[in-house]
């Protein structure tokens, strides 16, 4: 459970396909449609087989569909909230749904990562990349990143001072 951050990241970055149990979940969901079952099941069946996720350095993308193709990309920094929900079916199947909301204004999630047992790792992965997760910057010299421009300017100042001293002592 307490996997290191790097291990967790590696797991999430490698995610690409939903777990096969998602098809079971889709089937049960389609059964709820009673008479519409064959149509719903077919739609879900193709969604399952075409669903692809890609977790990148800056953002995440998902694509699915066979007749109507869909592809969604979003950057981690634009995530507004991370919503993890687990229905009773998902709990029995050991899966979870992570819905990612951006400020795009639709009432439904812009991107949904469903059908993975690693939903908690996905949640933590996204949380770490979300805006506002970083600690507030303290303005101490230790935490400042290396600033090459400043280092060069300091070197320049020292050189000029030494030159001036050298010239002054000649007179």
């Amino acid at each position: 459970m307490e996997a290191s951050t790097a291990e967790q990241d590696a797991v999430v970055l490698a995610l690409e396909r939903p777990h096969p149990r998602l098809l079971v979940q889709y089937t049960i969901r389609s059964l709820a449609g009673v008479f519409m079952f064959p149509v719903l099941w077919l739609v879900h069946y193709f969604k399952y087989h075409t669903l692809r996720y890609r977790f990148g350095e800056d953002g995440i993308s998902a694509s699915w569909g066979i007749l109507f193709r869909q592809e969604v990309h979003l950057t981690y920094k634009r995530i507004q909230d991370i919503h993890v929900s687990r229905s009773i079916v998902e709990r029995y199947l050991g899966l979870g749904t992570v819905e990612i909301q951006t400020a795009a204004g639709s009432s439904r999630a812009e991107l949904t990562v469903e059908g993975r047992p690693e939903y908690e790792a996905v949640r933590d992965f996204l949380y770490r990349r979300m805006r506002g997760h970083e600690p507030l910057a303290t303005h101490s010299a230790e935490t400042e990143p290396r600033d090459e421009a400043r280092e060069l300017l300091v070197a320049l100042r020292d050189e000029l001072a030494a030159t001036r001293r050298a010239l002054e002592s000649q007179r």
Partner: protein
Amino acid sequence: MYSPTKSLVLRLFKVDGAPPEPPRGAHDRVRVLRASPKYFTYSVLALLCAFAVLGGLLVVGCIAALFSSEPWAAAIPSGLLALVLALFSVLFFCARVDYELRYYVLTDKSVRVRHGAWIVDEKTITYSNVQNVRIVQGPLQRMFGISDVRLDTAGGGASVEAQKHGNTGHGVALAGIENAAEVRDEILGHLRRRAGGAGLGDADDERGPRRELSSRALATLREVVDEARALRRAAEERHGGAP
């Protein structure tokens, strides 16, 4: 009778009922809030109000049927009444479980809310993305001295159905807490410290404006430094050569 039923249902539903772990990362402060016990009383009262009209009508129907000459007349309203009572007890149980499975985790960077048993629902937001904080209190809630603290993000509009229930957008709701004002102050304190940006995915400008030099400018600067070094050497050599 309640707790064995509850543990059975939770086991059947595969709900672990444990509080959510706080969001990962270093936190100065983690505080777990629960809904007030009054929240449960409030939910039950709200339920009773919803059932009052229907139940009352059926009770009146039963009494009226007693005076009827037809021997079967009482069967229909009393059967319905039994059904309504059964439904009420199920909903009563749901209200109790809902109350017990509510967790609000506040840290110095984010809020995580988990609730529900049928669908276990968990939302995590950071203060940087919060657009506004609201306290909502209905007349019944005021009677009990509890209120909901809502944190809205820019995450899109809610459905029309959700808006009817006072949920105008995305974000989290800390429902049924007694110390709403104190919690609001704590949250606003965190918000003030993270005031930069519009919460719309702006680059983190919390370090203040920082403009990086282009790599070409840096290269030129390096050349200037080399030039200065050469100038110094030349000056020192002349100094050494011609005292």
